[in-house]
């Protein structure tokens, strides 16, 4: 008998035996395996039956999942993490920004001038690319370097699965997985990191839902936009004593709107686009382990912070170039930026925004951090304000909120523009770093496109409705 024949015979025999063994082969095999496992385990494992008076794991579990304390503990920990991140990041952020913008930038300009660099090369490299990178690094790095290690410490300790356990019911109602609470929280630091974190969700449908909705968590790059706009447009409506409270409240409202959006879109996706995707819930609550602080800080810096930062830097270099180019390429007497702004203005105004904002969101797609500097620069370009800013294509920020308000109002901004910018900052496509990450994680162009188009469409609709309501109310 030839070898090939005997091989075919094996397959033939297997095919026939499969009918005989019946449909529950997998079940009986698993049973056999676990019977053996249990028998061996019984023989070799002994438990000190004198139950300790105090079982630490069980006590912690009782506490963090208790009806009365479970949610307050969760809120408290989240608040502490956010507070430490925000206050802790202030100092290094301003240090970095003064180093990059006030020391390095002029120094580079001088060096370029001394070297006799062509004006356009100097502009493209230093005003375009360098400034974009500088902005991204100084805004992004410090909070991420604080937020991620803190989050990772909670993760190493074993607390995060308990959060998923506490919140799962709400997520289940939206067709999602409790662990999505954690990827959402991660998204408040950085959406790209939040998307990577969806790996812990091992059910295909729920993981896609978490990936597609992560953008509804307001990321670190969008907080400054929200806070600035809320302060100058909404806070200023209230009496000075209450201004801080009112603007903080309006930012919180946007955050809650994002949470609402997450649940709504998750609910919709699980019943339409993702109905047919396989789904299996499982959530293991691992034993608590003392976190190793130094190692955690080291690995989370390397793994999360630096990788995400590197991606953002890579993407912001071409964006810086694009920003500089559109404002310095002149066609028919006006810069490309002015043409584009003019072209998009009618649509922008229709949905209560303007051409500047739309253009800024298009060319600043790599990082939300540079949206406000780009908006300011483009506003100066389009409104033709002399003496403000640093020149065409050079992003800048103003020292005081009132000066910013002055610039924006000179270009025709109203309260409506402010409100809609806050909404649009929540509801627009994820930055290109996040999109790239989504593409890497899902391996699908379709889902990447869906995660970009869905929020933009929602943003347009919501802004349009708000604009109509606002105008109708005579605002």
């Amino acid at each position, binding site marked *: 008998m030839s070898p090939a024949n005997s091989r075919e015979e094996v397959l033939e025999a297997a095919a026939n035996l499969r*009918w005989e063994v019946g449909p529950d082969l997998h079940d009986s095999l698993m*049973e056999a395996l676990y019977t053996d496992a249990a028998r061996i385990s019984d023989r070799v494992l002994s438990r000190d039956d004198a139950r300790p008076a105090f079982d630490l794991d069980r006590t912690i579990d009782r506490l963090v*999942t208790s009806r009365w304390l479970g949610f307050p503990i969760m809120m408290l920990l989240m608040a502490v993490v956010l507070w430490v991140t925000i206050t802790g990041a202030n100092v290094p952020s301003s240090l970095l920004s003064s180093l990059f913008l006030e020391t390095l930038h002029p120094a580079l300009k001088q060096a370029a001038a001394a070297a006799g660099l062509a004006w356009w090369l100097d502009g493209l490299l230093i005003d375009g690319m360098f400034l974009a990178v500088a902005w991204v690094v100084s805004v992004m790095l410090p909070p991420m370097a604080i937020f991620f290690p803190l989050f990772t410490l909670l993760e190493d300790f074993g607390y995060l699965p308990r959060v998923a356990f506490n919140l799962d*019911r709400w997520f289940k109602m939206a067709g999602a997985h409790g662990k999505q609470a954690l990827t959402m929280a991660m998204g408040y630091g950085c959406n790209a990191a939040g998307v990577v974190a969806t790996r812990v969700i091992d059910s295909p*449908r729920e993981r896609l839902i978490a990936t597609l909705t992560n953008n509804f968590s307001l990321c670190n790059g969008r907080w400054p936009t929200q806070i600035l706009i809320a302060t100058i447009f909404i806070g200023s409506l209230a009496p000075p004593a209450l201004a801080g409270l009112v603007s903080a409240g309006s930012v919180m409202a946007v955050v809650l709107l994002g949470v609402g959006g997450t649940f709504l879109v998750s609910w919709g996706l699980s019943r339409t686009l993702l*109905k047919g995707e*396989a789904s299996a*819930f499982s959530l293991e609550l691992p034993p608590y382990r003392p976190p190793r602080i130094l190692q955690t800080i080291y690995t989370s810096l390397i793994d999360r912070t630096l990788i995400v930062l590197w991606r953002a830097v890579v993407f912001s270099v071409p964006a810086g170039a694009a920003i500089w180019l559109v404002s310095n390429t002149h066609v028919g007497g006006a810069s490309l930026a002015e043409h584009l702004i003019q072209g998009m203005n009618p649509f922008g105004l229709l949905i209560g925004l303007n051409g500047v904002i739309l253009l800024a969101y298009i060319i600043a797609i790599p990082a939300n951090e540079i949206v406000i500097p780009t908006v300011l620069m483009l506003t100066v370009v389009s409104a033709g304000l002399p003496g403000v800013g640093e020149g065409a294509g050079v992003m800048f920020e103003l020292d005081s909120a009132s000066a910013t308000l002055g610039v924006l109002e000179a270009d025709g901004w109203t309260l409506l523009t402010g409100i809609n910018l806050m909404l649009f900052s929540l509801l627009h496509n994820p930055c290109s770093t996040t999109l790239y990450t989504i593409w890497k994680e899902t391996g699908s162009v379709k889902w990447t496109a869906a995660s970009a188009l869905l929020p933009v469409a929602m943003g347009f609709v919501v802004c349009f409705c708000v604009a109509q309501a606002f105008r109708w109310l005579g605002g």
Partner: protein
Amino acid sequence: MNELTGPLLAVLAALAIYFLFRPGRGWLERWRRRLRLSDRVLSEDALKHLYHCEYEQRVATVQSLSGALGTPVEKVAGLVQRIEAGELATSEGASLRLTPKGREYALRIIRAHRLWERYLSEETGLKEPDWHKRAEQQEHRLTSSEADALAARMGNPPFDPHGDPIPTQRGQLPPRRGQPLTSLAVGERARIAHLEDEPEAVYAQLVAEGLHPLMAVQLTHVSAERICFRAEGEEHVLAPIVAANVAVVPLPREQPVEESLETLAVLEPGQEATVVGLSPNCRGLERRRLMDLGLLPGTVVAAEMRSPVGDPTAFRIRGALIALRGEQAANIRIGSRRQVA
């Protein structure tokens, strides 16, 4: 105006003709294809019926075909003629028989149907009621090479989710398994192998009883009027004529009798119980996941804590703490509950 009307009409007419008769995608062509498709669907369904009759050793007639297809007898007569013209079946008196070519054709359709049901049950999140409906359509669309590719990807599954065998690539099917439920003696245990889906009224009664393939049953009482048996902890009573439509495979006697009325869902924190079995409703990815975690007959499971909002519940399963949602726990049957010492 008049000068323009003529050319305009000509252009419109040309467009209309183009859209109607466009080769391949014209409206007329599409309409004809749809007619042909529904003709094809009907004859394929007819072949399936003939095959089922043959497999179950029943006689197929124009009347039984008309009942199975839900089509008037007059229309079926035309259909039978077409099938015979295609040399797919022959008639001997009133009874219809498949030719070898027709049998091969029928098996191809059944293979596509059962494979698609298997696919939907194992690899998508769709629920039971959707499977059959979708497979009824998909069976006419899948080419045999597509069906083969699908089968290969799923590891050539031998059975569909209802416990029925899937014909192989070469059209092989094992002989019918099982014996009628009525042939069991009192006290004997067996597993349901197949539920006969014709006549429809009887099948509907079986489904309403909550019976499904792979369910373990034990006969408790037999008389001329009724047959009583337990399945998954519930008492069922069927008329013998109905019970005859349930095919079962006897189980060895030495296995302990599964006695359970409850599921993990009723276990309160602080209680424990032994798992009796996973419901056949839990399948695909989810079933494999739960079994991997060690949820199998004989496993002792203790409920440890409940989420502050009531669901999920964390269970101690073979040393690990695993949270399960209420509807998952409801698919896991348990023996009697007891307080953890």
